């Protein structure tokens, strides 16, 4: 196994999974660090014939996130760290940042399972089949649910911009 290659390719995806789940850059980095440290301590036990490195890593990442939720008992919707972005600074693209803040808030208000779907799809970059395996849904179920969720988010974004 080329663990260096796994590190390079998986770090951005694991980090973005946590970023979509928590909305907080520092927490996302902490959780990504915990995931990799845990995975590295179990490298000897990893069996490529049973699961791909991606499946294995995201299995660990999802456990790390569950533990984080349990321990922190925080509601993600209460995390609004990107509010800091609304403060002006040189070269600041306010519209774009506002849009991101709104999207992040809307995602945080989704039901838990839909937040996980969004994080696995757009943060982790998994395809519908891979997500279906993690969430014990059918591939078409994942597609339908994602479509409804994204459409609903888009509508809310558009409505908000029209105001």
């Amino acid at each position, binding site marked *: 196994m080329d663990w260096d290659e796994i*590190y390079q390719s998986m*770090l*951005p995806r694991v*980090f*973005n999974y946590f*970023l*979509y789940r928590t909305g907080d*850059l520092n927490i996302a*980095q902490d959780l*990504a*660090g915990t995931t*990799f*440290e*845990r995975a*590295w*301590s*179990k490298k*000897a*036990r990893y*069996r490529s014939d049973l699961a791909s490195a991606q499946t294995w890593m995201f299995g660990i990442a999802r*456990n790390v996130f569950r533990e984080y939720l*349990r*321990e922190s008992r925080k509601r993600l919707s209460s995390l609004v760290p990107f509010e800091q972005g609304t403060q002006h600074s040189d070269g600041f693209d306010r519209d*774009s940042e506002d*849009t*991101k803040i709104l*999207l*992040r808030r809307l*995602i945080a208000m989704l039901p838990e399972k839909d937040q996980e779907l*969004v994080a696995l*799809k*757009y*943060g982790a970059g998994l395809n519908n089949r891979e997500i279906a395996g993690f969430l014990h849904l059918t591939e078409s179920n994942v597609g339908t649910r*994602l*479509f409804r969720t*994204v*459409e609903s*988010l*888009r509508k809310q*974004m558009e409505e908000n911009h029209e105001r």
Partner: protein
Amino acid sequence: MKDDFMYSLRQEPEQTFSASLKKRLEESDRQSAAMLASGKARLRFGFSLAMLGLILAILFSVSSVRAKLRDLVIKIGEQGVIVSQEYPKADQTALVKPIAVPISQAAENGVFLPAPLPKVFTLADDHYLFYQAEGNEKVRGDWAEVTWIGPNDEKITMTVMEKEVMVLIGSESLKEILLKGTHTAGLYKGGWNTDTQSWDESIPVYSLVFVKEGQSICFTGSNSEDLILMAELLFP
């Protein structure tokens, strides 16, 4: 589906974070290699120390009567746990000599093993140990112990006791977790240190306790995730 906007929250991890994590992982690799080279002596020592602690804990786990005013009695699901700052007194101990029973007789004796066992774990022995406390006033109930060996020579022990037995620990770091999302269990780290006569959370051993079908079950080992994995195999 127009979903480009959904990718707008993606970011690259900060370079300083990425570099520092890589450094930590490389250091962890070096330490693992050094530990393997030294025959994992430290881990084995830690484990044996904690096992001694666990055995003492079981011997002292008599009933809620054992709990003193200063002790904290916690219910994790159906499992009773006494959190005490007081090291179990020697005059309350009892030595119980175990009987080796063929593992093939485990199920008929009410000792159900996790199945299917992950291939990386193997039974340490073709016998399990049965501790019969009958007639001994200082301990309550009988218990059985089964041990598996992991891929790095680490041990996982499952102890099966009567449901009424309460586990005596000195740690308030007990966490409640769910096995298979439904079965409540308690997870804690450390053991009674016989040298310092106190609870020692630095001992690198985790314990997972829960009640299943009238039996109190405790898994101990150096990796909490492996304990959860094994315990969940008891819930098909």
